[in-house]
């Protein structure tokens, strides 16, 4: 019986590469990983947005309307609905002039109870140290 913690560190912008999208979909896939593992074994993802990656967390992304693809907003909400830990770097949102009101902080509209957290980079560094594997993109 073991839990392995995977740190998905997202530093890229939402729509130029698929990197942040795939990081989110892989993190969410942790919900069905048990079929491959022994009883009691688990994978626990934590998702951290750093650098330009914090721009994934802006509200009102209309990618579905314009391009017919799920927005990163929807993926972040889905991960909060699944109670994944989601951290957003404080220094980076300040550097880019983003207000907390513009950020996706919860998934209440779809019934989620877990909230995203805005934390100093030092907290994210601690997460990076504590996880078993780092998946940065």
């Amino acid at each position, binding site marked *: 019986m073991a839990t392995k913690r995977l740190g998905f560190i997202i530093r890229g912008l939402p729509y130029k*590469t698929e990197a942040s999208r795939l990081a989110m979909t*892989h993190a969410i896939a942790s919900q069905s990983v048990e079929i491959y593992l022994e009883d009691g074994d688990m994978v626990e*993802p934590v998702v951290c947005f750093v650098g330009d990656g914090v721009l994934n967390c802006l509200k009102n992304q209309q990618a579905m309307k314009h391009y017919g693809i799920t927005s990163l907003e929807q993926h972040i909400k889905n991960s909060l609905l699944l109670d994944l830990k989601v951290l957003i770097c404080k220094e980076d949102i300040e550097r880019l002039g983003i207000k907390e009101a513009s950020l996706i902080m919860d998934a209440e509209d779809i019934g989620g109870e877990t909230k995203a957290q805005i934390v100093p980079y030092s907290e994210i560094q601690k997460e990076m140290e504590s996880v078993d594997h780092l998946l940065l993109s």
Partner: protein
Amino acid sequence: MGKLTIGCFSSLVGSLSLDFAVKLSEAAVKKGHTVDLWLSGNATMLSKKGQKAFKDYSHLQKPIQELFTTGSFQMTACEACAEARGYHKEDTMEGCKRFSMDWYLASCFSADRVLHIGGD
């Protein structure tokens, strides 16, 4: 000896990230390690069978077929990423598996080292 899981999300040809992943796999297997190579996003291009060798394009089919014969290497493509690009089961290179994304997480679970090449 350890297990290395490489996740590669980069497109075939040009970026050379897939070439890097394959060469690193070869070197690791040669030293007695085992390697899982997970192909997601545009990297699923590598799972398409029938790639023709030209001198202007990377051609990785041959080294991968050789890696398969060692028994210490497995390559799996993300099924949804492949289907979205029009690669169906019958289009898949021999020896390459197809699973959903949770396969990668399970491979990371039992890996000693993980290298996630996330960009394009």
